[in-house]
């Protein structure tokens, strides 16, 4: 049952990634403006926006399927060197191309500051998780490496989930900006919580650690007050 559900999930994200990539070719038509771009007009630096959008789309077309491939345990067992080299390539693409272009494009997101902040949060989680994943892999803590790479995959999968929600909500007479924000925030926050709860051996360990550190600091300062010697 677990394997079937995992397979279904991978198929869903793989299919979503293919459909998004195919629908993104319109951004590379030099004779026409894409509908997504028309919505943003007027833009002060339209050429820069289009350049960032193309970089972002190309990086995403590599990153999401790449992350799906890298989560394959059988591929890891058979070709560990491929996993390492391809993982470095995908990590480089995410940190150098996908995230920076995404942070810029988020400035023009629908829904005002809520939309911008939602995308920045997602990008921030991707960067944080990617750096932690690299750190854990170099330290040979592969269980933690796996959790952080799932966070990266989850946030990249927001692109698929949010589009699915947009299509599902299309038949409801709601404000389009509201639907857009719902389709952004629910996947971003929900994916993070889902992965922490179901894949992390110690869910929200970073939060527990902060609470623990603060508790120790408070108790040590309390002891100093009571017994200065």
């Amino acid at each position, binding site marked *: 049952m677990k394997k079937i559900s995992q397979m279904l999930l991978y198929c869903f994200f793989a299919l979503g990634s293919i459909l998004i990539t195919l*629908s993104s070719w319109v951004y590379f038509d030099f004779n026409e*403006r894409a509908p997504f771009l*028309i919505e943003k007009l007027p833009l002060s630096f339209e050429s820069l926006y289009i350049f960032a959008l193309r970089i972002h789309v190309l990086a995403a077309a590599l990153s999401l399927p790449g992350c799906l491939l890298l989560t394959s345990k059988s591929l890891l067992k058979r070709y560990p060197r491929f996993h390492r080299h391809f993982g470095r390539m995908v990590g480089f693409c995410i940190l150098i191309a996908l995230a920076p272009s995404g942070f810029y494009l988020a400035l023009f997101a629908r829904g005002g500051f809520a939309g911008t902040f939602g995308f920045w949060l997602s990008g921030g989680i991707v960067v944080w998780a990617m750096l932690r994943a690299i750190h854990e892999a170099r330290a040979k803590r592969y269980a933690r490496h796996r959790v952080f790479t799932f966070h990266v995959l989850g946030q990249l999968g927001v692109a698929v989930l949010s589009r699915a929600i*947009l*299509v599902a909500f299309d038949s*409801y007479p709601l404000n*389009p900006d509201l639907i857009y924000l719902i389709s952004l925030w629910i996947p971003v926050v929900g994916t993070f919580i889902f992965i922490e709860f179901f894949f992390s051996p110690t869910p929200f360990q970073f939060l527990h650690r902060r609470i623990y550190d603060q508790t120790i600091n408070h108790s040590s300062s309390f002891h100093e007050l009571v017994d200065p010697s």
Partner: protein
Amino acid sequence: MTKQSIILVLFMSLWIPLKTIHPLHAQTSNNNLSSIESILEKKLLDPLRKKESERSKFSRALLPPTGRKIRIENNTPQTDPQGHSFISFSIDENRGYAVNPQKSDHQWLKNAIVGCMYPASGEVMVKRGNVFYPASILWGAQVTTASLVCQSH
């Protein structure tokens, strides 16, 4: 002649002149309104619908609405700084299949597209943000902003 036939003749003698001397300006404005709407349908909404039918559903761009209606609040032409007369319009959009478009007026998204039309040339301009573009921008044409349009002098 019977009484009914006299009454009928009297009625017809009054009704026919009333119909023939109906004020022309009223008819002209009604016809004008319908011709503006027909131009907008032909030059703006039809090409837009055609382009939207070819679009992918998996873009982050707003999905096409289920219906649109043209609203012209003031069909008196205004004059722009270049001396050309134009008429402003708004287009409301209807989203969702659970709505009866004829009854639920408040569920229409007002002013989804705002712009103006020049009746003399048939040119249609649309507003994006604070600037105006030719209507072909909406189906992806590589056009630039137009200045001194759709603003009354």
